[in-house]
């Protein structure tokens, strides 16, 4: 009698025990799995806080003299110490996240490249995917090498976790890897996102690879390479300066304002109808939310976001009011938002005191279109602006990199010409006879250098460019010294957790014992 169940098992148990998950695993995806993993890179770009949220803002923006943490005094108080007064922390959420998320992106890229390699793919689509993985890996390493200097170099899929524990590689080796990656990326990526098929606006292109590559050479002061790559981007004919400066920041219904003519690389966010209460159409990011006016003591319809990354008094004082970009960059408590001409919507902000800050980052406010708020349901107490794309590289940077590189190589004429492109656009296209933002002719290399530095400051204010600019220009101590910056602050200490995890293989940045 006992034989009955045993017989059942003999024939049936293998089937009982061989149970695959009731949902897909990677093995269930067909040839598209390289593609699906490639898309995972974009998902990480949007979802990993180290690329698009507070940690990114902390490292890239508020460390400079023109942006500060913002919000209420007590909110994220530790960040003030860590990033504004340069008491860098070895173990805190923001710095740990920044590090971890960049390596997470690198491993995603490594895994995808390993897969592509093992399948020996040669089809055009897969080659584009390889280009994307190379691009994101280079982008991550560029952030890491600027932020930490020497860092561990991981380029292989990690099968045994111990293989992921590595000592630091010199910055030069990191840059060499970046060059190798961007060489391939530049070759493999399409000129235009439409090559990916329909519905891929904003997916990375050869232009993005070349622009990023140019930025990396800018940091290495390899002016010839900067000029070559920037000119390649210009020559591609795919990009142009947006005629109106404020249009760059618009982000409205049906995607209006996203991926504009000036967009080279953007973190893509999406919110559908009633996204505030419907997670099924909510694929946004708090990059936009985090930089909106914070409610403070105001009424709930000013509960737009978290109020981080706000302009400093220093920026307001230093910036000539005649520059129209100032009114498009700084939003003033207690004042009219400036109306459509400066990217506003006709609202009047509550006074400082009721609001926690005098000034707010208007570039993100411009993207917070009230029509989009109504559409998504992010109104009153559920205030947020999660649909806003993060403009990471825009064409204006290509032009100003060209200006800077030409100037450094002694080509004053081309430097002035490119500078003028930006100033003229900033004026609203008033032409050579304008009185505001007048044309700056080339006189000396030093004067032109100063003009370009200023132009970068105004053009990219609040966009997270200036801190690294100050460092590479050697101006950081002079400009930020009053805030507590010393030379060692150009590099952040490596997170203690990473050092602990390595069991001593990874050594702390010696300037931060």
């Amino acid at each position, binding site marked *: 009698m*006992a034989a009955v169940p045993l017989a059942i098992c003999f024939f049936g148990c293998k089937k009982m025990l061989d149970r695959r*998950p009731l949902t*897909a695993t990677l093995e269930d995806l067909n040839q598209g799995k390289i593609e699906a993993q*490639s898309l995972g890179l974009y998902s990480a770009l949007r*979802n990993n806080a180290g690329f698009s949220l507070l940690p990114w803002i902390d490292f890239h923006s508020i460390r400079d003299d023109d942006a500060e943490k913002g919000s209420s005094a007590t909110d994220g108080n530790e960040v003030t110490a860590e990033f504004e007064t340069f008491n860098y922390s070895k173990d805190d959420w923001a710095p740990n996240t920044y590090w971890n998320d960049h390596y997470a992106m690198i491993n995603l890229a490594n895994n995808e490249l390993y897969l592509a390699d093992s399948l020996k793919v040669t089809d055009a689509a897969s080659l584009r995917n390889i280009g994307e993985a190379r691009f994101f890996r280079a982008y991550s390493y560029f952030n890491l090498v600027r932020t930490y200097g020497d860092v561990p170099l991981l380029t292989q899929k*990690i099968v045994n976790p111990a293989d992921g524990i590595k000592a630091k590689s010199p910055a030069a080796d990191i840059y060499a890897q970046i060059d190798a990656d961007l060489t391939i990326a530049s070759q493999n990526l399409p000129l235009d996102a439409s090559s990916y098929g329909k519905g891929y606006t904003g997916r990375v292109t050869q232009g993005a690879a070349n622009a990023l590559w140019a930025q990396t050479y800018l940091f290495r002061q390899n002016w010839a390479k900067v000029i070559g790559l920037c000119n390649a981007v210009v020559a591609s004919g795919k990009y142009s300066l947006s005629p109106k400066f404020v249009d760059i920041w618009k982000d409205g219904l049906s995607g209006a304002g996203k991926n504009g003519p000036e967009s080279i690389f953007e973190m893509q966010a*999406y919110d559908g109808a009633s996204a505030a209460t419907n997670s099924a159409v909510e*694929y946004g990011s708090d990059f936009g939310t985090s930089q909106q006016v914070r*409610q403070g003591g105001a009424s709930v319809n000013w509960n737009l976001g978290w109020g981080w990354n706000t302009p400093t008094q220093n920026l307001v004082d230093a910036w000539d009011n005649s520059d129209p970009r100032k009114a498009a960059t700084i939003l003033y408590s207690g004042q009219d938002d400036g109306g459509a001409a400066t990217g506003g919507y006709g609202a009047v902000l509550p006074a400082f005191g009721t609001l926690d800050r005098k000034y707010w980052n208007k570039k993100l406010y411009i993207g917070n279109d009230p029509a989009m708020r109504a559409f998504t349901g992010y109104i009153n107490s559920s205030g947020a602006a999660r649909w806003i794309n993060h403009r990471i590289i825009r064409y204006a940077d290509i032009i100003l990199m060209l200006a800077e590189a030409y100037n450094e190589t002694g080509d004053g004429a081309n430097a002035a010409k490119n500078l003028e492109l930006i100033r003229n656009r900033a004026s609203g296209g008033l032409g050579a006879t304008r009185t505001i933002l007048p044309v700056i002719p080339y006189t000396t290399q030093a004067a032109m250098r100063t003009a370009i530095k200023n132009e970068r400051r105004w053009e990219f204010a609040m966009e997270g460019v200036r801190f690294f600019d100050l460092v590479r220009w050697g101006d950081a101590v002079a400009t930020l010294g009053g805030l507590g910056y010393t030379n060692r602050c150009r590099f952040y200490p490596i997170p203690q957790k990473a050092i602990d995890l390595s069991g001593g293989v990874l050594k702390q940045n010696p300037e931060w014992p």
Partner: protein
Amino acid sequence: MKLTTALLLFTCFQVSAKVFSQTRITLKLQATELKKVLSLIERKSSYRFLYNDETVKAGTRVDVDASNEPVTDVLDKLFVGRSLSYKILENDLVVITGKDIEVQETRVTGKIVSSLGEVLQGVSVKVKGSTLGTQTDAGGNFALTVPDNAVLVISYIGYTTQEIAVSGRTSINVSLVASTQKMDEVVVIGYGTANKRDLTGSIVKISGKEVADKPNTNPVASLQAKVAGLSVVNNGTPGAAPDIRIRGTVSIGNVHPLYVVDGIFNDNIDYINPNDIESIEVLKDPSSLAIFGVKGATGVIAITTKKARVGQTIINFSTTYGIKKLVDKIKLASGEDFKTLFAEERANNGITTPYDYTGLTANTNWIDAVTRTGHFSNNTLSISGSTDKNRFNLGVGYIMDQGIIRHEEQGKLLISFSDEFRVSKAIRLGVNLNASRTKAPYDATGVLDQARKVVPLVSAGTQRFKVRNPYGSDTIDANIYSGLNVDLQNSGVVNPLVQLENEYNKVKNFENRSVGSVFAEINFLKNFSFKATWYADMSTVNKRQYTPLYYAYNPVNNTPYLQSQSTKVSENDDSYKKFQQDYILNWKKSFGDHNLTATAGFTTYYFGYFGRSGSSRPNATGQPIPDDQRFWYINNYFSDLSSATGSSNQNEYFTVSELARVLYNYKNKYYLNGSFRDDASSRLPIHNQHQQFWAVGAAWDITRENFMNNQHIFDFLKLKGSIGVLGNQTASQLDGTPINYPAYPLLATGNAATVPFGTDLHTAASQIYIENPDLKWETVSAKEVGVELSAFNNRLHFEANYFNKTTNNLLTYVSRAAIGLKDELINGGSIRNWGEEFSATWSQNLSKDLSLNLGGNITFLNNKVLSLSKDLPTGVLSRNFQNNGAAESRTQPGMPIGYFYGFVEQGIFQSYADILKSPVQSSLGAYQPGDIKYKDVNGDGKITSDDRTMIGNPTPKFMYGGSVSATFKGLTLGIDIGGVYGNQIFRNWGALESPFQRTNYAADKINRWHGPGTSNWVPILNQADRINFLGSTYSIEDGSYVRIRNVQLSYNFGQRLISGAKIKNLRVFINVQNLKTWKHNSGYTPEFGGDATAFGYDNAGGAIPMISTAGLNVTF
């Protein structure tokens, strides 16, 4: 005349045909003691002798020379010339008396009840030293013809055996005293039952009565402090499962025991009515647990539900009603205190202008505002009956259980049915069904924490406003709750009443569950039996929730605003399917002195979960969904279905197992138990699916040895020991989130997998974790040695055990984020749990009417992490809570599991001079006088993160329980106490709040530092001084406590009073649970559970009420 007899424990294989059967014996002895001769005759014949030691004096030596002679002749010869005579009664019982004493046969009748006055059916009544006996009927009555000088031995499972001399009486009524430790009781073991005497392990049996009349929806909650080695950490939410661990924390994953209800494996017993429980067995040692394979390592709680007994039809009704009160509240600042403290905090930040409290004029005790007196009731009716062929038991009950938070209420309808049919002498069939329908309480778990955060100046009442009808365009009068002053409090602080009062009745959440089994059992070839059982456990949880529109008002300008601005309905359907089949073959045989029971079996288990959820809402311009239950469905006409959402989640697994067990003893003196199980699991990688578990145990009943014959202290003394390897099937992330397919990394779905480009959406693939092809379940190498004894005429029962368990191959979900890797589930590391358990009971009848029961148990626990996976090079598994992870539990080699890690507070910096002469702690942040001075633990002259150390251990050093019960006639008073000693609690509130969260001050802030010498423990009020918000001993509190767990007074009405009303038994009782707790911490309670690696956190919730109930139990 008092009779004592020799121990007559020899087994007789002869069956006497009839009285005066001329059994013949051959016996040749010289100068042998008469007693010895009698005993040899007993061994060789069916006769049993009953005599008085005075009659048959020691030292009387006789010669015997009989060759195939009738026993009566032998006796006649023996007694020649001695003043002895004998009389042979029924059943070959021979009474030996003096020559001149006449033995009379007497018809004795009587009634047997428990010390609580309950009628006891099936009690064994035997004449001591004979096989003569009977059982009580359903009315507790017996009748038996015995010699008038006989001694009756009255025994019943779960009660202390009593011996009563008949002394010529014809009516004997007995009250039996309950015993929790009895050596001869039958206990549930895996896949069967066994006499406890035959086992080598530690199984504690608790009578269902212990849980039946306690006001806990979950029966396991009633076991707190009752069983050595069993830790029960309760919480106050109706129906919520307690945190239960048996003999320590054996894993960093699953630590909760396996429940086995009438044979079916389960992870909870929510569907069982406490009144339907016959008994609960707690299985703790390797010898008992190996048979459960991969589910055995965390211990087993086996529940047996009530079945009908032989006898007539019985109807039982019981009812309990009670109230719950919150007794230990946390202490917070009052409105005036808040103003004083807040003004001081502002001044500390350089703001001297007075705060504008416009609109904030109340002085609300927010804890009182959200709590209430809750009610509890349990009404159960059961009917059982039996015939020769069929027995059935039927029960129906309803439990209503309110929490102490407003509107928290659980309702539970439970039915049970069992039937057993005897087809023939050899074949039995049976069916068993438990079904329940549970209305889940509104989820108010966060309310207490929300309440303590609100400043008392906010009103808890409503104000009447004229507002636009949010569902229309007319104007209505509405009673509206206050919002908060958003300038003072916004981030993460809300008036909990706004949502609670507006939404508590907008959810319908029901679980329907049926657990059933059928079995067929056949006995064959004399010694074999085979039983096949098929089980199914099916449940569905349906939850429908509606979000209404409602207002709150702004207290500053006294204007209402629409707090909830859009309607929404959501529906969840979760179904669980569990199937089990057991095929068990038993073989029982004795070979001379060798007794053997062997079991072999095959069993499979299937678990499947299938969940679907969806929601819908009207479009932005559409009419809101009306506030009517008719529309609480996704498709309700008002919803915009184009934006409706739907998703599903499902997983399943299968295990296939073979098992074997042998219970062996030699002369009932030396015992050996062995068990083995092979488990194959579909959740493990294909080539790795089988794992084996085993145990062997041995025991020695010393009282059976001859050298123990002359002692009168021990009635029973057993030494035992067992060793084995048990399994723990666990796979979870470090925070306890289960990983359903550890062998197959799943892909991220939803938001994380969706990639927009412009307004187009695409799906990305990224694995959530890394696959580990070598994965296997955790194993626990367990050992136990112990002693069990009964002494002083079974008044004392005592058990002591030492256990030592080492868990190996801990399933660790390692994070490698710092090298950018996904997490991975790996095997590595081990934990040891060891300790001692002692339990004792003393039962005594002080007089005819007064009996006393005392009991106590104590368990000493030790836990040490021996190693962790080498893939965690830091050697630390860290769990972090509160802002920036300041509250930290660490699991680390050499340390107890989940110990609290942080700084040691040495006091408060009183002045700048104090700062200057102390070690520098600036690496932790800026600091000033009034801030916490941390201890330089490593003595390097500066305070850094390296000065963190162990600041607490959430595992008690020991836990204990005790009980006293006294019965006088029908009245019984019982008191249970329980407690733990030597653990710490991590208080998360009033210390580690987020820097941007303004909460009401905990009362200890009234004694804060506000100038030199004002405090050396509570720091300055200043949210900006983040240095005071690091995890430190400032947040650690003593977790030791003693609690009066239950006080119960009950009365059983005597037969004279109730028999006229055709009532067989009537009992009334009052009970108070958690009457008083002596504790040292500032939370609502000292009990805080958690998961394996993070427990003992006080998050300003978990209040455990005092529950006073009264009840009645009547049997017809």
